[in-house]
């Protein structure tokens, strides 16, 4: 909490007090918000939770073991959920054979590699622990929209 100065007691009505109270807070929030939006997602995730004006949004894509997904399909699926400032976590059971290609297609995403055999539910829970968002959308890799290049299939380990 930001302390309220007792010197503001000259403003006797509650409305004035409230505005004075808000004035002490808002500049700090703006600073937090601007700083928050600059760095890449991985840096922002490490920052402690601070007051913001808008919710931070995270998207978790769950790729179960032996699931087939192409980098284009993954990138397009993420684009369909908005191009804004979204923290993306891709949770995989086992290491995908095309991990490098997937990482290149969604460069700003955090990849979470769980041991092979991890269940979808456990993957979702693990990814939720990593996602920094206030609003977290969970998406199954199987539900990503198909692309023209989808014929090229990649198998996870």
């Amino acid at each position, binding site marked *: 909490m930001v302390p309220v100065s007792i010197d503001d007691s000259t403003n006797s009505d509650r409305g004035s007090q409230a505005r004075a*109270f808000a004035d002490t807070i808002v500049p700090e929030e703006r600073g937090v918000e601007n700083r928050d939006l600059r760095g890449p997602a991985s840096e922002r995730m490490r920052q402690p939770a601070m007051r*913001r004006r808008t919710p931070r949004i995270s998207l978790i894509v769950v790729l179960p073991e032996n699931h087939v997904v192409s980098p284009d399909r993954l990138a397009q699926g993420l684009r*369909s959920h908005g191009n804004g400032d979204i923290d993306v976590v891709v949770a995989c059971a086992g290491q995908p054979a095309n991990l490098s290609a997937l990482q290149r297609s969604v460069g700003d995403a955090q990849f979470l590699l769980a041991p092979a055999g991890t269940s979808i539910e456990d993957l979702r829970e693990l990814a*939720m622990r990593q996602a920094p968002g206030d609003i977290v959308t969970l998406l199954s890799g199987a539900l990503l929209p198909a692309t023209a290049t989808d014929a090229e299939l990649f198998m996870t380990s």
Partner: protein
Amino acid sequence: MPSPRPLSVIVPVRNGKATLSRALTAILASELPRDDYELIVVDDASSDGSPELAARYADTVVRLTGRRAGPAYARNRGAELALGEVLVFVDADVMVRPETLAGMLKLLSDHAGLDATSACHDQTAVAQNLASQYWNLLHHFGEQTRAGTSGNVASPCAAIRRRVFLAAGMYDEWRFERAALEGIEFGRRLEDSGRKVRSSRDLEISALKQWTVRSLCGEVWDRSVLLTRSLGYQRTRVAVPSEAVFTLSRVVAPAFAVLCVVAFSAAVLPPANGPVKLAIVLVGSIVLNFPAHRFFAKARGIPFAIAVAPLHLLMQAISGLGLCAGWVMRDAVGDREPDAATQAYAEVGLETWPPVPRTSGR
């Protein structure tokens, strides 16, 4: 962006890890096809890992940070994100039956004039202790005997058209920081504005929450105080006669008459006849509550009805005291309001996340 689905199921939770998994599993086991609904869980600043547990099942998890804001606030935040034409609010401590969600959607589809509907408690509380069984049956009794008239749009499971929900100003998150009667207030507000709200006997849920005598006393006290302090007893009773407090307090006036008889008998009977006076009180209480006791006996047998008779009497006494206390508080200190800091934030329209509680529901 994801395509809209007919239904958005919104589950508010606070430290509900003990029951959340069963509640969400029951929703996913619904007869409704999975593509027909989205599941949104709104976590109200839990400290027990509820958001991570919710992520195992939900499409979207909303994390509210800071201090507890209440289920009304949490439901509103979920509704703001929801894309479905119909919103279903399910508490994190109930299990919907497989046919409940589909039944709600069908009811609203078939009756264009109906704006909201709510489900009833079934007879089987999952917790087996006496207090939980009693409280569940008390709800069931009120809801079944007054079905079709209820204007309760929250606990434990209710569906409403999204446009109606938003147009009515959503739940009153300003006054209802705790889980008590916010759905009744909203339902009454809807009916006052000409909207049609009905409960259905055929749509049922099972309660998961475990009650103790102590927690029941607190719940009955809170509800009773709130009824007279914030909502107004008579108007609310007309709108939502199925509420448990009305089931308890319906006999308050006759009970007062019995007390008068006992007081009169005290003047006639010799002082040593205390057991006789006690017997008069007990017989009078049982006679006054005969419909409820008969229902308990039918549902669980005569031993159960006998066992809960003192508990029922205790709840009635607490309810009566709570109603009186709320009435006094309304005149002495006024209606409930959030703390000064929240009021100050709201007054200047401070934009922050999570947002400051709004007064639009009033």
